[in-house]
Every structure is written in C-alpha cells, then in structure tokens.
C-alpha cells in the first residue's frame, strides 16, 4: 500500500458514523450506530499521523496503544489491532461505544487541533466487532491455578476487568452479582440502542471460558457479609465493584405520584426486564405512547431515558436541565442523537413541584427559569432561580435522572470500611486498598457515578486493584 504523506493524511475528512435514520430509529430499539465498513475503517486509520509522541494515549484512562492499533488497521490487520487494544482494555466493543472520547483520547489527538480528530472510538469499536463477527474471539491464556481465591462483588465494568486480570494470573475468581443478569449498568442502565446486550454477553462468555465463576442472585451484605467471605467462604481477598446504584430524587412535592420514576427504575424496567416487549415479557412500564414525558437531568442517563421514552412512543419528550447545554455532562454524541430524534430541550429550567390528581396520578410539573451565576465547586456556573418565572407543563410520565450515590447496603454490614462525606468508599488511589485488610474497591463505588473506562481502569492491572491484590496475596503485606 502506498504510504501517505502527513499532508495527504490531513486532507482526508473524518468519516462520520453510519447511523440509522433518526425518524426511523427513534421508534425502534435497534442500535443507532451501525459501524464502519472495513474500507471506511482503513481510510479513517490513514488519517492518523503516527505521531512519534502520541498525545492521544495520555487522554485514554487505560493508555491503550492507540497509535499502534491504528497502524494495524491501516494495514488491514484488524485482528492484530484488536489484540493490541486488548493488551490494555478487556472490553473494546463496549468502550468504543460508550467512552466520552471527545474529552479523552480524541480530545488529545493532534489532528483535532486543526481538523476533526481521528475517530479513535469508532475504530476501536470496528475492530472489536470485526473480531466478534468472525466468531474467533481469542481467549487470553490463564496461568496455572495458584489455589488462591478472590471474591469480586459486582459484575459491572470494574468487577469484570478485575476478574479478568486476576484470572489470567491464575487466581480462582468468583464474581457475585445481586441481579439475575451480569454486566451492571451495562445491562440494566445503558439501553440496547446504544449498547446491544449481546455484546456484553459475549464479553462475559469470554470470562466464563477463562474459568471465572459467576454467581447471580447473590447479594453481598445479605447472604454473606464481607467478613463471612473471608472466614466462611475462604477467600483471600475481596474486591468491591458494587457501583453507584442508589438513585437520587429531587426532594420536591409530588415526587411519589404515579408516573414519577427514577431513571434507574425506568431504564431497568425497559432494559433488564424488557418491559418494551410487554406482554411477551411480564414486567410492565407505564404507557408513554402519545404521552408527554419529561426527563430531569443532563447526563448520559437522562439522554438514555429520554430517548427510550421516544422509542416507547412518547408524543413529546423533554429534557429539563437547570444549566445550559454547555454544562451538560452527557457525551456529545448522545446530545446530538437526542436532538436529531426530536427530543425537546428545556434548558436553564428547574422543577419546583409535581402536580397530581385525586387518585395520585401525575398530571404536570411546575417549573422555574434559571440563570447562571458564579462558578461553583464543580467549576460550572451555578444556576440561580429567576423569581416569578414559574410556569407549568402537562406531563404524564416523569423520569428523575439527576445522579446516583453509592448503595449503602454493603457498608451497613461492614462497618470497618471508611466512607467519605459523599458516602463513597475511601481507598488508597494507587492500590485501591480500603481501610479494611484484604478488601479493595474500584469503580463508581469509589468515584461516585463516573464512566465505564474509569471503572475498568480501577479494576484492572497496572497500578490498580488487580495488581495490588496480586501483590497483597503473594506477600501478605497490607
């Protein structure tokens, strides 16, 4: 193949994602992004300048060797490329889809200084899908069993990546999951149209084939306490990857009316329980068809909920967010997709109270306009209510998506765990050790609601939990 000059490379425009048509996709649950073709992937890969000092890598929380895997794609060696990625990231098909690339790897890509950055996420996704479609997924080699047992609590990205690394090192790893399905937020939160569940299942099957054991329907803190995992079940170390699954509510009047959901419940009913297929599946979800649905919040969860409501047939689907679009924490792609699909954004607007009827059904919401004041602790400008600007909107379903905190279930039965003021678990940032001997933690339980890739980074090798667990068990030193 002809080698392109940097100039020629810079001339190639970024290839957009091939997507389902917005009007069509907003009414189905199939994946929105369809992925690159091999030709597009090769061309997109040729846009990479192969920088001697690739800045993109520093933008990736798990330091994927981005330059090298893209070079392999440019050569047409897709399987080689996915192997290269998997040296640092166990779940490329997932991260390629859900990472906020625009503020991580792609933000740091030099091409982005003058042009649009190389589509690193799309390329990562492409090779991972290519490998899965080929049906020849490589199972990493596993060292001979060293007879040591590690318990992983929670099967979200943090738990899964920790499990993989420890299993490779020869540990007997058991993952305990509270729900009946494995994958954490990847299966109960993030919708099918953004992350098909089949992909999560394939990744987990890979871990099963490596010999990781999984126990669903098992809530640690209820069936075993952490202490019992050591004493009765004989584990040598415990990793807590229990996520931040406790939904926050607005704390305003009328929040217990019929029709007000937490995003967790709304999304769990649809994704995990498949309520969109009622009555083929038994769990129901309130009718959104031809109704008005309002979602409160501006993060990925809010976008997922509002786009789900459209797919359930909503006539008007609103995002109600108290700051401006610039402050929205959602991925840029999700906001773009939501707009294309017809979601209506009410920005600088905050709910005051929910309005119901005699029988307890939600009828509307009273809102107030906001303006931005001085920056707050998070560095974002603080929204302030504009007095007298109240107005009401008729709504039938409300979804509160203003964030989640760590679920206290496990702390209540493990009082020795030091908890921060934000009720997250306190850990040593280098080793992910908690205040309790033999217990490590990572992911949203430590950071509060964050991202898939950060959760994985905390659970995997390198400086983090899996490596520290290995060291602790081998040396016995805490």
């Amino acid at each position, binding site marked *: 193949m002809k080698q392109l000059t940097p100039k020629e490379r810079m001339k190639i425009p970024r290839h957009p994602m091939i997507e389902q048509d917005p009007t069509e996709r907003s009414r189905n649950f199939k994946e929105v992004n369809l992925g690159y073709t091999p030709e597009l992937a090769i061309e997109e890969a040729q846009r990479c300048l192969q920088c001697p000092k690739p800045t993109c890598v520093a933008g990736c929380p798990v330091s994927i060797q981005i330059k090298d895997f893209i070079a392999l794609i440019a050569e047409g060696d897709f399987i080689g490329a996915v192997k290269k990625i998997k040296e640092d990231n166990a779940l490329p098909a997932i991260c390629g889809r859900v990472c906020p690339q625009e503020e991580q790897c792609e933000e740091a890509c030099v091409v982005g200084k003058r042009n649009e950055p190389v589509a690193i996420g799309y390329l990562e996704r492409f090779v991972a899908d290519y490998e899965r479609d080929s049906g020849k997924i490589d199972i990493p080699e596993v060292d001979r069993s060293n007879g040591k047992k590690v318990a992983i609590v929670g099967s979200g990205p943090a738990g899964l990546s920790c499990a993989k690394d420890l299993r490779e090192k020869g540990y007997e790893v058991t993952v305990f999951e*509270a729900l009946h399905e494995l994958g954490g937020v990847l299966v109960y939160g993030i919708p099918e149209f953004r992350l098909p569940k089949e992909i999560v299942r394939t990744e987990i099957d890979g871990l099963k084939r490596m010999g990781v054991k999984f126990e669903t329907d098992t*809530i640690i803190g209820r069936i075993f306490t952490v202490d019992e995992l050591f004493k009765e079940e004989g584990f040598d170390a415990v990793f807590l990857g229990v996520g931040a699954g406790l939904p926050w509510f607005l704390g305003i009047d009328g929040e217990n009316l019929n029709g007000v959901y937490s995003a967790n419940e709304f999304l769990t009913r649809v994704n995990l329980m498949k309520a969109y297929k009622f009555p083929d599946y038994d769990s129901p979800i309130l009718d959104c068809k031809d109704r008005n649905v309002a979602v409160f919040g501006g993060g990925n969860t809010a976008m997922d909920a509002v786009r789900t409501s459209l797919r359930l047939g909503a006539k008007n689907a609103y995002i109600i967010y108290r700051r401006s679009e610039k402050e929205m924490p959602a991925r840029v792609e999700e906001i773009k997709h939501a707009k294309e699909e017809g979601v209506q954004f009410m920005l600088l607007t905050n709910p005051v109270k929910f309005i119901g009827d005699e029988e307890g059904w939600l009828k509307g919401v009273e809102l107030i306009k906001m303006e931005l004041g001085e920056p707050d602790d998070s560095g974002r400008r603080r929204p302030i209510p504009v007095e007298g600007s109240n107005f009401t909107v008729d709504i039938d379903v409300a979804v509160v998506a203003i964030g989640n905190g760590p679920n206290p279930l496990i702390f209540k039965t493990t009082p020795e765990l030091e908890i921060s003021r934000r009720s997250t678990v306190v850990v040593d940032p280098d080793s992910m050790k908690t205040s309790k001997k033999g217990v490590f933690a990572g992911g949203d339980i430590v950071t509060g609601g964050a991202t898939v890739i950060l959760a994985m980074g905390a659970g995997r090798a390198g400086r983090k939990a899996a490596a520290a667990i290995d060291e602790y068990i081998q040396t016995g030193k805490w």
Partner: protein
Amino acid sequence: MYKIVDARFLAENIKLFEIEAPRIAKKRKAGQFVIIRIHEHGERIPLTIADSDLEKGTVTIIVQGVGKTTKELNLKEKGEYILDVVGPLGQPSHIENFGTAVSIGGGVGTAIAYPTAVALKQAGNYVITINGARTKDLVILEEEMKAVSDEAYITTDDGSYGYHGFVTDKLQELIDQGKKIDFVLAIGPIPMMKAVAEVTRPYNIKTIVSLNPIMVDGTGMCGGCRVLIDGKAEFACVDGPEFDAHKVDFKNLADRNRMYRKFEEEALKKFEEKCKLEEKIKSLQEAE
C-alpha cells in the same frame, strides 16, 4: 435454578412451596423476604420467607394467586424449578420482649406474620394472634398459629368460622376488655393495616405494619418501592418492609399499587386464556 421440593395448597388459591435455597435458609431472619423470577420472561416479585429448614436447606413461601405471576407460580408442582430466588431481603423484624404482643394477619398476611409471631414468642412475649379471613375455607396456618400463641383468635367476615367480624373488631374488643397491649404487628391488605393503625393510634400502642409496594430489584437500586413515612420517602426493600403504622401514608401506597392495574389485567387475561386453551388441548388429547 431453585428446586421446589414440596408444594401444596393450604386453601383455595393459596399455595405453600418449599424451595431448595440452603444459603438463604441459613441467613434469613423473621420479617425478611425473597424476590423470585419464574422464567426468562418473568417479572421479579417479592414473597415473604414464611419459614426455613436448615437441615433440608429449604425456605418456605406461601403464595396467594392474585395476578399473572402468582397464578403461574401456583401451577408449579413439586420437582419443578424456579429460575431465580434472591434473598434474604429487607430488614429483619425488630424483636424484643415487649410484654403482650398481638400479631394480626389478614388473608395471606397471616403467612407473612407467622415467622414474626414465632420470634415474638421466642423472645418471651405473651403472644395473641388474630387471623382474619373472608370465609372459613380461606383460613390458613390455624394449627401453626395456635402453637405459638398464648391466645389465638380466628375471625371471618361472614361468620362461617371463629369470631364473626373483622380483625379490628376483635382487637378493639380485647382493648375494651382492658387487656394491656404493648405491641401490635399487622400484616394484610392495605385497608386492614390502615384500620388497625386507626384502632391503636388513640391508645398509643406501638404498631408495626409490613408494607407491600411494587418492587423490582429489592436492593435499593430502583426506588420503585418508595413509601411515604412521616411524609418522607423511604425504600421499603431496604429500609423496610416493616414500618411504624402510625406514620405510613396508606393512601399513597394504595395509589401506587394501582399503577399497573391496566397491564396486570391484560396479562392475567392473556394468561388465563392460554391456560384454558392448554386445558382444552389436553382434554382433547386425553379423549383421543
């Protein structure tokens, strides 16, 4: 997969199951429940652990067929399996020696009250049980309740057995007789629990009810089970299911439990049609 090692009807539409779940059997305490899912397309529903057998490694649940899932469950027989059983969930009942404790059960609520009545007895209370049913045939656990009670009463709405009247009438009668009651536990339909709360309120008798909001995960993750206690939202699956009856907003609970009425009726109708069809096919096959 969790094996059903025993299954039998206690009354029309009320079935007892013993399910193999040794770890839950070992850990469960009175007042706790499990969430089950019968099959891949099934809903997750909460059911109280009525009893457990450590030797056999089983838990007992007692199920009243009220809708699609419970009726489908009640078709299951000994030797069949339930796909998912997770627990023990919820806070155990707060048990101490209160003095005289009255345990009131309405309908299948009797089954839910039973383990707590046992624990109250073990803690040294003078235990009075009042168990209500619509009619004689629906009375359940009569012998079991008698065995743990210092005084046991049955009430029926139609007077076909025991005391003629509601459980609250009997409770009021005991109070009027001058019995010093220190603690009341009431479990049953929402109107019954509300009525009990109103009976005990003027006397300031500590009264606990076990609430039955609609649940999904049972771990505090969805917030669907939130109930208003003293005007504040609490999650029944982790903060409850037992709460101070005098602080519960029963209207909100009743409203919320009607949330999916339309869907429940549809699901039940479809299910019953399917059952009828299957029966018909079976009888045709047998006739052949």
